Every structure is written in C-alpha cells, then in structure tokens.
C-alpha cells in the first residue's frame, strides 16, 4: 500500500502546531519548543520530497542490483537544516538561561522592559 500524501499532511500539521505554540504560549521554553516543532515539520517536508515509491536507501555499499534509489540531495539539505536547528536552539536556550538570571521569571508577559 502506498503512503500517498500522508507525510506532507503531517509536515504541514507540525508547522501549524509549531506556529500556534510560538504565538500563543507564554513560557519562554515553550516558545523554543514551538520553534523546534516548526523546524521538525520543515525537515520532514524536505526528506519526503526525495521519496520515490518502492525505492531503497541511496547507499552503494552492499546494495542489491537493479533497484531504484530515493534522491539523496534532500537528505543532505535536511542534515544541514538539522545542524542549523541545533545551533539556533542552543543559542535560544542560553538566552533563556540568562533572562532567568536577570529577571527571575520565564513568563514572556512579564519580560517586556523594552517597549516603544
């Protein structure tokens, strides 16, 4: 049975959930989790772009002959995106640690000293 468009739907759902979390939650760590969800959705979308029906992984070591392989380029794109996501999350979390030390709270509603 083929999977059809299901991975694309799941990726879109993850992106929408992530944006909802980012817009409507107040704890800083939850904002970071929301951004992480959007990244995961985009990564899933990128990997699914390369899928071809009934194809095997694009590895030449001990590969069976006469088989189709999925596209390897989207996998490289996804890997780069995961690395960038790691650096971004690490930076956001260290900012959250310093904000907690200075303000004493992680509530985004109370950390509004820069206004205007």
């Amino acid at each position, binding site marked *: 049975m083929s999977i059809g468009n299901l991975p694309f739907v799941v990726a879109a759902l993850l992106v929408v959930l992530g944006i909802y979390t980012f817009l409507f939650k107040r704890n800083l760590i939850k904002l970071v989790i929301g951004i992480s969800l959007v990244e995961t959705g985009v990564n899933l979308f990128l990997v699914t772009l390369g899928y071809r029906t009934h194809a095997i992984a694009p590895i030449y070591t001990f590969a069976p002959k006469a088989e189709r392989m999925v596209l390897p380029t989207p996998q490289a794109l996804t890997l780069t995106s995961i690395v960038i996501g790691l650096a971004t999350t690490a930076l956001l979390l260290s*900012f959250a640690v310093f904000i907690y030390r200075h303000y004493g709270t992680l509530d985004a509603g109370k950390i509004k000293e820069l206004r205007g």
Partner: protein
Amino acid sequence: MTALINHAPVLLIAIPLLGAFAVPLIGKLGRGARNTFVGLISLITAALAGLLAATVFGHAGAPSLYVMGGSQGFSLPLPSGLSVPIRIIFEPDGMSAFMALITALITLTGAFFSFSYWRERSGGTLFYSLFMLLTAGIFGMELTGDMFNFFVFLEITSISACGLIGFRVWLKHSQEAGFKVMALYTLSGLFVLLAIGLLYGQYGGLNIAYLASTLTGSTIDIVALGLLLVGLALKAGAVPLHMWAPDAYGEAPAPMSAVLVANSQASLYGLFRILFTLFGLTVSVATLGWILIVLALLTIFVGVTMALIQSDIKRLIAYSAVSQIGYMLLGVGVGLAVSVAKPDFGFVAMQGGIFHMLNDAACIGLLFFASGVIIRATGTRDLNQMGGLAHSMKWTSILFIIGAFALAGVPPFNGFASKFLIYEAAFKLSPFLAVVAILSSILLLAVFVKIFQAAFLGPRREALMSEVPIGMMIPMVALALVVIVFGLFPGFFVDKIVTPAANALWYGRDAYIGLVLGGG
C-alpha cells in the same frame, strides 16, 4: 594576480572564516596580537572586495562564474540528453559587487572602531570571532548563485548577529533583545527554507539560474514567492514585521549596530535578487511592485514617527535606520512595478534605490559610531540627561551633523543625491509617493535636530571624556569622507558603480541564466 582575481569570490568568504577560527588561538598571545590579526584580516578582505568590484565593473557588470570544487565545465549530462548543473556556484554580477563594496566599507570601519571602543571590556576574543563569522556570512549571501547556499549563509548571519546582540551578558536588556531577535530570525529562515523546498520539489534544482529558466507561474511558485517575501522582509525590517529592529540595533554594541544594518541590507539584496532574477517576468510584476511600494511607504512613515517619540538615543537612530530601508524599497519597488514596459524613470528609480543603500550604510554607520562616542562620554543613553557636549567634543558634533544632514537628504551630501533620484522617479509614477517621502525626510531632519540640541547644545555638564580618542575618530572621519565625496560628485559614482548594478537587475536576467546554462 590573475589567480587572486579568479578566486576572489570564494576568498572573500574563506579568509574571514579563517580569521574567525584562528582568533581564539591568537588571542592567547595577548590583546595587541589579536587586534593586529583582526585588522589585517579586515584589510585583506576589504582589498579583495575592491578587487572583485573593479573586475566586475570593468566588464560593465556582467556576471562571472566560480564553481566550488570543480572546473568550469560542471554540468552533469543525463542519459536523456538533459544537462543539469549540479555544483554549488558563486555568480557575482554588478549588484553583488556593489553590495560587497558596502559590506567591506562597513565591516572595515566597524572593526577599527571596535578596537578602541572595547578597550575597557573583557571577552573580546569571542567577540571578534563572531564578528568575522558575520562578515563571512554577509559576503556569502551577496555572492552566491545557489538558493540553498543562500539559506545557509542567511542562518549563519542570523546566529552570529544574535550572538553579538546578546554578547554583553551583564546587561539584562540585551538578553531580552537577543532572545526576541533570534526567535524572529529563526522563523524567517524557516519560511525561506520552506519556499526553497517547494521550489526544489517542483523543479528538481537548487541553482538560481536553473530555476529561473524553468519557472512557470504556477500556484506553487506563487506560494513560494509569498513565503520568500515574508521571510526576507522580516529579516530586512520592513513594517509591519519590524518589531525586532529597534531592540536589535539599540542593544547591540555601537560598532555592531552598523554591521547589523549591513546584514539587513544583504537580506534586502536577497529579496531583489529573487524578485528580479529568479522570478523575473513570470509573475505579475505590477502587483508585486505595488506591494513593495505599499510596504515601503508604511516603513518610511512608521519609522520616522516612532523615532520622534523616543528618548533613548540608540533606539531613535535605530528607528531612523528602519525608515531608510523604506526608501530603498520605494526606489526598487517603483522600478519593479514598471519593469514590463521599462520606461526611463523606472531605471532612475532603481538607480536611486540602489545608490541609497550605499549612502544609508555610510550615514547610519557614522551616526551609530557617534552615538557610541556620546554614550561613552556621558555615561547615559537618555537624551533628557545629556547636554553641553559641543563645548568639549567639537569633532564629534561636526561629524554628527554631517551624518544627520546627509541621512535627512540635505544637499550637498550624498543622501540628497540618492533621495532626489527616488523623489523624481516616484513622482512620475504617482505624486502621492513623492509627497510621503519628502514629508518623512523633513520629519527626519526634525528628529536629528532634536538629538543635536539635546546632546550637544545647552549648558556645559560633566563629561567623562574630553575628546573622542583618535582610534575612534579615524573610522568616523573615513565614513564622513565617503559621505562628502559621494555627495559632491554623485554623477561620477552613479555612472561607475550604481548603473552596472541597476543594469544587472533590470536587464541582466538573460545574461545571468545564459552564463550557467549556455556555457556549462
């Protein structure tokens, strides 16, 4: 020498990266060694940017090709006879060389300004490491010819810019600003990545020239264009997505605020590259042009009016930087809106918008450096508590006046030259645009007169510094010289530098595509 010219596009990125990775090792030898090393790397990078610009403008802005990791013939012939370009390429043309010149100017003066500005602080080694990563990222965004490579450099600049904003961890406002800015930059990068994924899935290639040759105007292309527009406009700071800009420019250390403006201009360049070269005439350019014009008017107006009510000097200059981005969008938006029929005033509008990028970078750099000196001299950022600096800091007040009048568009400085081109061309499209632009320039002049009166005039107060140290003054004088010289001879510089850049965007799409697909 020829080898240096051939490899200049990639050396512009590799040498700052080398500097960024080697600075912590050299920093162990002491502050003098580190400053010398950073200064040397900045000088070499600026010289390479000048060399690249001279080569590209010598060919009247025609694009040249640099293939990463392969020789010039790099297309992969498939069994069906179709030939697909598969390597990552750098394709500097007139517009890229122009942006490289701006970046080289701002990062060179910023580096030299920060040598004396950081004297009493500690932790400078990692500061310069992040600064050179940011430099490498901005050059990468401007020179690349591959969409995913553009995204990678976009994220590099986002991460290092936010690292620099939140660098002073003992100030609580900078941490809050760093968090907010990083969250918004990440979302903008993810929108851009989603659009790149959509285009890749539809057409099977990541090369800008390859995508430009196979784009049709289907629904997925419009969705990708919308996502790219939102993502890049967020990073450039156009209203209504400008909320991060006053925090970012206001909380960064003074030399870094100017480099952050160069960062926003680089993403604005990315937007122009996508609209003119990637999509070109396959989508309805009149609609797109008017969308850009509406964004530009909002940016110009909101930026200036928010600047009027600020009492913190750096946030005030930050809001005026936001409103100047609107002028660039206005010039290029007018050009885009009429690029089907291509009348003369459209080309003049493009020249004005592009020239304003250079002028704005120089003036805003000068203003941010001057504000850094003012904050260091008075110990406060509040305009209500300053005063009387003109008695003791004559050079700073003169340099500040030059920067402020140039930005507001007063002749004979360079801001007048580029703004006059924009007013002229926008008036021909619709008189309302020119009226809003001129009114906002007048309001901007009022804002700067307010700063000048608050900080420099008035009775003499206790100053913590007698006159600006020579190390901080030389970069400011260099930028002021750029402002004055470009204002006195605008025609010369527009012909030499701006016209090839505008040509590359307006007429250069076929040359851009033909270089990659026709030859390789």
